[in-house]
């Protein structure tokens, strides 16, 4: 087999004064720096844009990043919102490393919320103290079941999990909508489309007085450590990585694609389902037509910004949570629409993807001939 020689830049690009050159080894510095760089670039870019529409960037910065966390309650909110993002992203990351593209965490989140809340609503009296743990387990199982569909279809029919998991988001949301408009609607709810509130024994209590963040945040941190250990020290984590880096090498070494796809989707589905039930059993307290402001999608960004590393994800989920909170306070104080959060998120991911390039490549001025 001939060595694949690198080809020269074609003449078409001679107007561009730099060219990309592959580094002989990936840059460790850029590996650490790419996410912070992307965050800084996003903030600069965002405030230039705000300046452009007539908002003072300094004031905006305060409203976005300082005010929301200037109280204990605010810090609690930061951790609270980071929780579902962290859980979903932690679950997605091993799959993305293994080339399993579950982009339907939002749907698994929703089904987890439905299954868990169902346990809390209908079996609360029989289960007693076991209700809450069973609700969380039910949420995990629900998310896994929903993620099992794309896993099965990919392995049995070669159907792309990207499309299937995404279509299942819409289906899950419609299912939830039907439940809260129909069979599970609260008879005492003045016709609002929502379920009865979950009883106290089926609700997650705040970690401390004066804030809403609950135990699931700590579970998330524990999971981050567990995932780190899993990826670094277990054979299953190793097999996932090989499957993503070199599928042919995985087949050659006898690593089962089937096992990898199932494992990746069960992890991501379970984590998203846990996030879903935690939202419903925590801050929301009941089922309503919308249980997530797009956590499942934002988690994709969180996973990438965290460079698919569990500890990176913890940090990036805090950043993304800050963006959500900032967006809310900007809505109130600067009359900016909530969609500005989405805009910031998208920009952040773009910058990150661009910054990642410099882990493997560097810019070199083109030698003039």
């Amino acid at each position, binding site marked *: 087999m001939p060595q694949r020689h690198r080809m020269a830049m074609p003449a078409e690009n001679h107007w561009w004064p730099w060219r990309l050159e592959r580094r002989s080894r990936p840059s460790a510095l850029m590996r650490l720096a790419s996410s912070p760089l992307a965050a800084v670039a996003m903030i600069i870019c965002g405030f230039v844009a705000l300046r452009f529409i007539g908002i003072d960037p300094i004031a905006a910065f305060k409203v976005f990043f300082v005010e929301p966390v200037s109280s204990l309650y605010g810090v609690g909110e930061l951790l609270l919102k980071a929780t579902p993002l962290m859980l979903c992203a932690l679950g997605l990351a091993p799959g993305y490393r293994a080339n399993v593209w579950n982009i339907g965490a939002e749907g698994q989140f929703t089904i987890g919320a439905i299954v868990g809340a169902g346990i809390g609503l209908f079996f609360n009296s029989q289960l007693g103290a076991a209700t809450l743990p069973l609700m969380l387990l039910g949420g995990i199982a629900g998310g896994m079941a929903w993620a099992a569909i794309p896993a099965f279809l990919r392995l049995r029919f*070669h159907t792309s999990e990207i*499309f299937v998991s995404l279509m299942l988001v819409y289906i899950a949301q*419609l*299912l939830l909508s039907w439940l809260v408009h129909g069979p599970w609607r609260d008879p005492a709810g003045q016709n609002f489309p929502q379920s009865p509130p979950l009883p106290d024994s089926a609700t997650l209590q705040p970690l401390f007085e004066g804030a809403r963040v609950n135990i699931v945040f700590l579970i998330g941190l524990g999971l981050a450590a567990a995932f780190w250990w899993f990826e670094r020290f277990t054979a299953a984590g190793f097999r996932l990585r090989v499957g993503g880096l070199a599928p042919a090498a995985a087949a050659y070494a006898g690593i089962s694609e089937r096992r990898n796809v199932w494992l990746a989707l069960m992890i991501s589905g379970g984590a998203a389902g846990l996030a879903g039930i935690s939202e419903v059993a925590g801050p929301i307290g009941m089922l309503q037509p919308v249980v997530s402001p797009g956590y499942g999608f934002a988690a994709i960004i969180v996973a990438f910004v965290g460079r698919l590393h569990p500890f990176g994800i913890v940090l990036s989920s805090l950043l993304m949570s800050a963006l959500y909170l900032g967006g809310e306070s900007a809505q109130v104080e600067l009359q900016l629409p909530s969609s500005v959060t989405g805009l910031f998120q998208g920009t952040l991911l773009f910058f990150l993807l661009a910054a990642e390039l410099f882990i493997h490549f560097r810019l070199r001025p083109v030698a003039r001939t």
Partner: protein
Amino acid sequence: MTIDTWVTIAASAVGAATPLTYAALGEVVTERAGVLNLGVEGMMLVGAMAGFAVGIMTGSLWLAYLAAALGGAMIALLFAVLTLSLQTNQVATGLALTLFGIGLSAFAGRGFVGMPIARVPLLHLPGLSDLPVLGRLLFSYDLPVYGSLVMCAAIAWFLQRTRAGLRLRAVGEQPGAAHALGEPVIRIRYLAALFGGAMSGIAGAYLSTAVTPMWAEGMSAGRGWIALALVVFGTWRPWRVLGGAYLFGLVTVLQLYAQGLGIHIPSEFLSMLPYIATIVVLVFVCRDGRTILLNQPASLGRSFHPGA
């Protein structure tokens, strides 16, 4: 059920299919060049917003569609810069483009929510449009509907019969070989991505000026993803993609008429139909792995770096 009802259903199905047609045909060209842009949903929304806003401000539908095409192409350009010049992962970047497009359109379009706009006028072809049944079935649509058919024919001809189309396919199959033959791989991929963006933009504009003449955040409701699935369903061939789009148009419309047809199923379940249909159709097409292997552009989704 009268013939009249069926004609109405068929005519609405064509309307519902048209945005899917534009977006999917654009993506066919992008993907045939080897570029997988999963950001169709985002590009459609930007197009829908840009088209609606310019339509309201200028009152000109021509300008509205032009703006939509430009808007779609502009954010496709962002995608192209990232994936083609900066070599980012196409799947991840496409997802980012979707999220970005949703945010950007919602942000920029916030002033236009709830405003009314006149629907794109239906053409009246003297004589033809007045024919019984056929007149309504074939000759009473708006210009963009006919435009989509022309685009389909043009793209099919371009890909299969022209030298430029041949070069584009070559770039999608084996970019390394095409480069060795002196083809400007990156430039061709840029153009293909921009074309796909423009078509998605037009698809969005048709949504906000014809299907439901208004602007609302996230109004494409997954149609961009369905269009992507249609490309697979149509095995990357324009006429098959068009057929698939009409099939989906019909599914979408049937659920709206289902209640009228005396079918009493909660509306949520009917609304699920297009999404379920997408999954079913994908399973059907992909069940034999070879169908995809034979038809999918060989380098789809893979970065190509001409120098080092």
